[in-house]
């Protein structure tokens, strides 16, 4: 048993003395947080909308004013060329062009039906959909305000209450998922590197002739990385709280419990990777390929799984991050308790056991 202690201690020496790797392990999560938190902002505001007012009436000017007063729309830096207005869209300087044709004001005052025209840049589909929705909204409000005070509309409204993320801030949505990515990457990458390094340099060969057992080697080598992974996780959460104001309303203990299972899964992937490669370089590449890519794309971290083709949806069931993303979002934002998360917990534990078993059998005590 004390052999594990010796191996873990040695691993710590390696980690502390490899200053550059240590730096990467600490700085990378922090950089990712800033990147994903700030740079990727999916909140759609300040869409550039060009308004071509051909009517030049009081009403058209009021409507124009309405649009630009809303936080969703802003003026373009150039007026559209009436001979080729779409040029503005092609060059990307506007996301949409609203046309207020002649006769708009007069139709409005007379209470007649009228149609406004809009061309939207559909190359960003999400944006286009939002533009359509927002512009209808602005128009609707404009029309409502023009109704006489005593006009009677049935008082049916949808009273919306947004739970868990009332401001709909995308950082709240992204950052918990980021913890999942970071834990997975650090654990799998570091683990695969340390084992591959020993294989490549020949020190594993010497080690295997001693009485140490394979499981002792694994446990001893992995223990320090569990600590580091948790340290990184806490770092990310701290930043999430302090910089982005992401709340944590659920149970810390529960997250710790699930985190442990998740990290163990990630470590198993690392061991598996190291048993498939023979050089350090291969280890880093394969580790990133098998963890970063699936975790970012298929975990629901950014892209909704339900919108993906069936094959990818099926594949996502094998991605541990998928379950952990739901778990951590649930705990952090929704105060989810254990009972609610049982399906995810079960899937995660199953995955962990499967990967651990495969990894353990593949970890060879032979030099091939």
């Amino acid at each position, binding site marked *: 048993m004390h052999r594990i202690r*010796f*191996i873990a201690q040695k691993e710590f020496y390696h980690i502390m003395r490899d200053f550059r790797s240590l730096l990467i392990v600490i700085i990378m999560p922090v950089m990712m947080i800033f990147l994903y938190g700030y740079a990727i902002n999916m909140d759609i505001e300040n869409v550039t909308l060009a308004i071509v007012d051909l009517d030049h009436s009081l009403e058209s000017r009021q409507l124009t004013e309405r649009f630009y007063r809303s936080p969703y729309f802003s003026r373009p830096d150039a007026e559209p060329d009436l001979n080729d207005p779409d040029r503005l869209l092609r060059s990307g300087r506007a996301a949409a062009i609203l046309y207020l044709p002649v006769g708009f004001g007069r139709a409005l005052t007379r209470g007649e039906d009228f149609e406004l025209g809009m061309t939207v840049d559909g190359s960003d589909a999400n944006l286009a959909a939002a533009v359509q929705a927002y512009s209808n909204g602005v128009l609707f409000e404009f029309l409502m305000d023009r109704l006489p005070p005593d006009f009677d509309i049935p008082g049916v409204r949808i009273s919306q209450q947004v739970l868990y993320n009332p401001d709909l801030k995308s950082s709240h949505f992204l950052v918990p998922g980021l913890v999942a990515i970071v834990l997975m990457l650090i654990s799998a990458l570091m683990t695969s590197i340390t084992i591959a390094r020993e294989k490549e340099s020949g020190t594993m060969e010497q080690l295997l*002739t001693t*009485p*140490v057992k394979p499981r002792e080697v694994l446990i001893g080598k992995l223990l320090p990385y569990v600590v580091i992974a948790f340290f990184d996780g806490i770092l990310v959460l701290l930043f999430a709280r302090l910089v982005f104001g992401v709340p944590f309303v659920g149970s810390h203990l529960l997250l710790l419990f699930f985190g442990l299972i998740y990290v163990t899964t990630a470590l198993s992937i690392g061991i598996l990777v190291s048993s498939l490669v023979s050089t350090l370089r291969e280890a880093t590449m394969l580790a990133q390929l098998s963890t970063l890519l699936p975790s970012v794309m298929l975990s629901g971290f950014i892209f909704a799984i339900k919108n993906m083709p069936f094959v990818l949806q099926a594949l996502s069931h094998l991605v541990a991050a998928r379950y952990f993303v739901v778990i951590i979002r649930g705990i952090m934002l929704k105060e989810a308790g254990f009972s609610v998360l049982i399906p995810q917990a079960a899937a995660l534990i199953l995955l962990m056991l499967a990967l651990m078993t495969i990894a353990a059998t593949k970890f060879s005590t032979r030099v091939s």
Partner: protein
Amino acid sequence: MAFLIAEDISKKYGENHALDRFCLSIDPAEIFALVGPDGAGKTTLIRILCRLLDPDSGRVTIDGVDTSREYDRVKPLLGYMPQQFSLYPDLSVEENMTFYAGLYGLTGEPYRAKRDRLYEFSNLGPFSGRRAGALSGGMKQKLALSCALIHDPRLLILDEPTTGVDPLSRRQLWEILLQLKSEGVTVLVSTPYMDEVARCDRAAFIFRGRKLSEDTPTALAASFVGRIFYIDCEPTTSLVERANTIPDISAIRFGAGLHLYLRQDDSLDRHLGELAAIGIDRQQITPIDADLEDRFIQLMETKA
């Protein structure tokens, strides 16, 4: 009873027979040398003995224990030093030794006593805090040997410990091995250098996975069939060619002179006339003993 027995060890890589029914038997407190060029199968055999590789067939017994069944019992008896430096370069001398000692369960006062003894014999004491990666080649070797000896193994296996090492350091290593032998340790050394085998108890020639011969070094050299003479002369290619035209004589250039090979039952006197005819005088000729290389070549050519 022999301490280490390898029976009919075979190992194939695709079409290549790395080892072909190789047999070995080493007695307790014996220094045994495995001699052969690169690619002969030395490292493959050693890895199989240490259970780092599984043979395709054959059995290995160490101290009466079949290693395919109960290798865990054997591991504490074994000290291994691979060909490449396989300790941790970013750990210090002391840290490496503490680590390996710990794996064998050696800690505290017993560890320190053993460690100090090893420091004395290796002169690594003053460098105990230095990173292993920063040691010179010779010191790295001493450290590797110390780590292999820290747990008082009864069987020491060294894979080409002297490759690239100068003769003096080699001599010192062999002196250490002799010292260990006197303490009852069994030693197996592999080497491509024929010239250092003189100090072992027995040696086996290995070539292309097969054992060419096995005996004491003196007996191996003496088993050479034929007679060899050194000719002190100007060894031009034409002279060598002409010497080779003499029936029953084969000649090669050797350093600043020639080596002449005769059949065992032949006598030099029979050829003196022919030799004089090509310019070789009786005074230039000295009989010499065959060395291990001569015998190895002879075996290679007959058994290949």
